[in-house]
């Protein structure tokens, strides 16, 4: 306001600007909650990241704590447990990508072959269900399903003459559980984009191919898949951008000390360091390390995406 009064005595140009603020006062008032919110809950924590370079003590606050430079990172990179967690994160993400990326595409291609619209809608609706349920619930469900004594999975295994397997406490199986349950939860929801792309596909091309004697598989591989290729490309690039982002909710609700060696990932590691061991600065350093990789991945994949999009428009 002070600035406004001062300016109004000056040249007409700046009086114009000040009157714009006045003219748009309602728009600007509407923005106040957002400005306060983003500064407090996003930009201040962003500044709070500096504690990764400090020896943070709650009593001294972020500003008062003393700088230690790269001390935490040095310690971090010398820890064997950190590299173990880093490897786990990458391996689990890659497996989820290798199996979880094609799964919704295949699902939508199969669904696209269904002629009965009611059946198709019904399958779609059911397949979305797990998306609406939290990992706390799914963790509970999986614990029961996979229980070595009472879980149906192990009852079937026993009936077939195998020994029961404790999937959630056995290092050999835990990653498999993470990957399969991830695919199970996301296959239906992930297919939405592809189904939408498929419904807008050109029926005439298919009819022409049919008249020419192309069979179903030929039509899928030579018409349908090329048609949705742009969507697949974009989704592929986007999921590469998210490779470092592990699923905290999933791992946290399924893992236990018996499988830390294969199942502990960066976000759960950060959680335990920071909120269980109360090593705030050290945990923030881990988080910052992960966020830095994530930003690089997202920005580079975004750039690639834009280039390909432009190319496609040409």
């Amino acid at each position, binding site marked *: 306001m002070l600035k406004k009064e001062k300016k109004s005595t000056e040249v007409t140009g700046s009086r114009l*600007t000040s009157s714009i603020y006045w003219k*748009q006062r*309602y*728009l600007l008032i*509407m*923005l106040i*909650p957002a*400005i306060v*919110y*983003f500064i*407090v*809950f996003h*930009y*201040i*924590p*962003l*500044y*709070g*990241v500096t504690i990764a370079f400090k020896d943070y003590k709650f009593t001294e606050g972020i500003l008062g704590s003393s700088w230690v430079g790269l001390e935490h990172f040095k310690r971090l990179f010398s820890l064997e447990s950190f590299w173990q967690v880093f490897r786990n994160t990458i391996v689990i993400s890659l497996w989820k990508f290798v199996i979880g990326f094609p799964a919704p595409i295949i699902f939508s291609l199969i669904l696209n*072959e*269904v*002629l009965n619209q009611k*059946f198709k809608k*019904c*399958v779609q*609706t*059911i397949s*979305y*269900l797990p998306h*609406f349920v*939290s990992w*706390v*619930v799914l*963790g*509970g*469900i999986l*614990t029961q*399903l996979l229980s070595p*004594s*009472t879980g*149906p999975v192990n*009852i079937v295994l026993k009936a077939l003459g195998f020994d029961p397997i404790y999937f959630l406490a056995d290092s050999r199986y835990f990653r498999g559980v993470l990957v399969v349950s991830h695919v*199970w939860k996301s*296959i*239906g929801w992930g297919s*939405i*984009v592809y189904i939408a792309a498929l419904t807008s596909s050109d029926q005439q091309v298919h*009819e022409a191919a049919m008249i020419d004697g192309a069979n179903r598989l030929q039509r899928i591989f030579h018409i349908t898949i090329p048609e949705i290729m742009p969507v697949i490309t974009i989704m592929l690039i986007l999921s590469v951008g998210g490779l470092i982002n592990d699923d*905290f*909710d999933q791992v946290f*609700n399924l893992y*236990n000390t018996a499988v830390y060696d294969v199942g502990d990932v960066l*976000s759960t590691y*950060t959680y335990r360091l*920071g*909120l269980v061991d109360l090593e*705030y600065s050290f945990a*923030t350093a881990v*988080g910052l390390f992960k966020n830095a990789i994530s930003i690089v991945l997202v920005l580079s994949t975004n750039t690639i995406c834009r280039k390909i*999009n432009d190319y496609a428009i040409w």
Partner: protein
Amino acid sequence: MIKHRSIGDRTADIFIALVLILICLTTLYPFWYLFTLSFTSGDVSLTRMYLIPPKLTLENYAKVLSDGAILTGFINTIIRTVLGTVIAVSCTILTAYPLSRKELVHKKFFTSFVIITMFVSGGTIPSYLLVKTLGLMDTIWALVLPTAISAYNVIIARNFFISIPDSLVESAKIDGANDLVILWKVVIPVSLPIIATITLWIAVAHWNAWFDSLIYTQSASKQVLQVVMRRIILEGTQDMMNPDAAEEAMHVNTETIKATTVIVATVPILVVYPFIQKYFVKGVMIGAVKG
């Protein structure tokens, strides 16, 4: 279009239908299993598989619903969902409207101010310390304020507002209406579909949220249903780590209680999701088109 489908095509149709039915059963079975378990009497041995349990009972529900912690959790979840959704939706609309007006001063600055938060974040620990410093620990505000505005939702709403014909807004302006009146009387009434979509997203997210309650509201009277449920589910998992045949008999009962707790917490979502899923699907499409 097709009059005569070949035998090969018909076989393929049947095969496809079978695959899809199998996928549906795989999706539904875990829920069905817990559902039946929740009606199973405690003295039924669970070491066999039943599609429908032999001895049906409501005693699990009687136990779970009379559990004070679960009731408190239910109430807390409802409060946080309602309060959180009201705050989030109003703030999102209030932010999206100015950003959608092309005459807004420093529009570029304000827009990037919002969008940047989609890409960078302080992470768990700085946010936790902030909530602690603000004195929000153990209050409902710790659950509804930190997630009050999502940049993504703002952009979705803004894009919808931009698509509203400018003549509607301009004619209201000529009639002397200010932006607050225009937003309330012109923009919101024609944007109800997108507002419904965003409202449902936020409400479901609040219903399912648990981590913030786990770390911010530690006293039992403030915890949300998902956290209470998590505690009940995890109780005894340490024993399950080394499954003992002798212990089995003791577990049988808690398994049914756990299952009932999960069903109680999930039924509200299961009941509404077939009706609200189309709004979510629409949302995914808007997001995808935007890229």
